[in-house]
């Protein structure tokens, strides 16, 4: 098999893995609450800063900081849900968007004020190295991010399918009224879902902080990619988020390999619009 082709596959898979944890998180929220968390990338940014300061001030390796960052973001998620997200749910799309743009402003400018616009990075030696298997180049940092993303996605899947609480979440996302009638406390399920989704983002933040620059606008790029991915896969669909991540990652990787890296995103997004025309609710989406 062609080495170039294999390298393309590997790159696509690695890129897809990075988008995956973030996309799965946003979709989890959408599934239960029917809103897109436009400020998800900003939460990721905050998580990355927490990992950064833990590393600088306490010398905690970002991979070992996962439980701490996850716990902090979980609590943050509960607070955010109770204070801002819960009342937003019944508002029309325009007002939701205004509130989320406001949230993005608040997060970004708080980060700018507290930590200045400097680009920061964490120097974890292992994340900077790479392995080469028969001419295929694999950066370890991204490989770790992929493995941890897959592991957390599988754990989430197991949690949703096998545990009672997970089944409550699934039931709420399928039919909130029926779930409520069966005695499920929907508000609590919503809060749990939101916090869980932010905790997932915390995992992504830890694995991404050694391989990306950390600055107040880190989240913006991830935001846009995640929106496209979840829409492509189908809003609210768990498998859709994973398929979408892989599709976008692969298209980007092969376009960069075959022609030009600067046009890769444009091609991926064009494919997204074309797919949308045939599947107006995404690949795995349900008609509403």
């Amino acid at each position, binding site marked *: 098999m062609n080495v170039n082709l294999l390298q393309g596959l590997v790159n696509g898979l690695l890129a897809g893995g990075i988008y995956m944890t973030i996309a799965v998180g946003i979709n989890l929220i959408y599934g239960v609450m029917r809103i897109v968390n436009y400020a998800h990338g900003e939460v990721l940014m905050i998580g990355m800063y927490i990992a950064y300061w833990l590393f600088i001030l306490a010398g905690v390796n970002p991979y070992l900081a996962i439980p701490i960052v996850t716990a902090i973001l979980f609590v943050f998620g509960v607070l955010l849900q109770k204070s801002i997200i819960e009342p937003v749910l019944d*508002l029309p799309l325009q007002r939701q968007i205004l509130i989320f743009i406001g949230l993005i402003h608040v997060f970004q400018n708080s980060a700018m004020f507290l930590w200045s616009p400097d680009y920061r990075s964490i120097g974890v030696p292992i994340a900077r190295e790479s392995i080469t298997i028969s001419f295929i180049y694999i950066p370890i940092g991204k490989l770790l991010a992929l493995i941890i993303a897959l592991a957390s996605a599988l754990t989430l899947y197991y949690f949703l399918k096998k545990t009672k609480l997970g089944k409550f979440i699934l039931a709420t996302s399928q039919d909130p009224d029926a779930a409520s009638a069966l005695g499920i406390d929907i508000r609590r399920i919503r809060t749990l879902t939101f916090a869980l989704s932010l905790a997932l983002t915390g995992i992504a933040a830890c694995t991404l902080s050694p391989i990306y620059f950390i600055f107040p606008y880190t989240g913006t790029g991830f935001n846009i990619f995640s929106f496209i991915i979840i829409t492509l896969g189908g809003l609210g669909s768990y498998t859709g988020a994973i398929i979408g991540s892989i599709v976008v990652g692969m298209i980007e990787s092969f376009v960069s390999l075959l022609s030009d890296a600067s*046009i890769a995103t444009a091609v991926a997004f064009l494919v997204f619009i074309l797919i949308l025309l045939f599947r107006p609710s995404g690949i795995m989406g349900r008609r509403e």
Partner: protein
Amino acid sequence: MSKADLKDYLTRNKKLFYIPIVILFLIPLLPIPTYVMHVLVLSLLFAYLCTSWAIVSGFAGQVSLGHTCFYGIGAYTTALLFRYYGLTPWIGGVIGIAFSAVFAFILGYACFRFRVRGPYFTFATLASTVIFEGIFISQSRITGGELGVEMPYTGSPLYFQFTEKVHYYIIILVLWLGVLFLSRHIQNSKFGYYLFAIREDEEAAEACGINTTKYKIFAFVLSAALTGFGGVFHSQYYLYITPKTVYGLDRSFQISSTALVGGSNDWFGPSLGSFLINPIVEWTRATYGGTIYTLPLLVYGLLMIFIGRFLPGGVSGMIQRGLISLKGEKGAPKGRSQ
């Protein structure tokens, strides 16, 4: 003066409302510093863009987060035609607007025909902006890539270039008044009512016999063409454009949030938002800059959350509710439920 008297006075003297317009036209006669003029131009440009945006995203409820796509098409068409063929931006601009409209028609037709709705439509528009930005960055031999296009300065009105900011001010003022008039006309027309119906409940509107696809496409194309003209103005005002400045998503989000703060459900709300926000943001940027500058923006973010949460219809909605309570039961507004 009692409430009834005030109401009487306002209804009898409708001409009073023209006074602000006259004042805006008289402003250039005053000795105004260039910087203040720049802020005025910027505020008017944003008022223009937000009003155009609101036609499709406010009236029809089809939220577009990719309006900079049309802005960029307008700006780049004009700039490239001028740069390579020496075509005057007056004609290049018309071509640019036509391109914006054609692309909006293609995107709008494709999306609305195939029932791409709600957040799916929002993200399709967002993606289209990113696509255009990518194309213009990658085709650097023609477009200059990330470094952008610089236009030769002639200073001649024949080429949509002026020596003074005042002239740009007059042009954008006329444009803004035009789009304001158009938007007001739409709001009180049958077309406007169709759009409001689509926003409130698309299926019900369809059941009433409204060709929702047709009207959504029309609103989208109209809004895009107007936005395209904004881009033409931008290219001639700055004489230098890059993919980031004209296609960048920042501007898209800024247009949406400004319009929504002012209130995107009626003709005057978006402009109100622009006049409230832009001067303050510009002033703080100029006065403080650096890290302190982020504090006002932080407050602005909190303000957006507050307005989104507690003031349906933005600032304009609040004022209207005030006026209604002033006027009594009679003058209930149309199509402004959210």
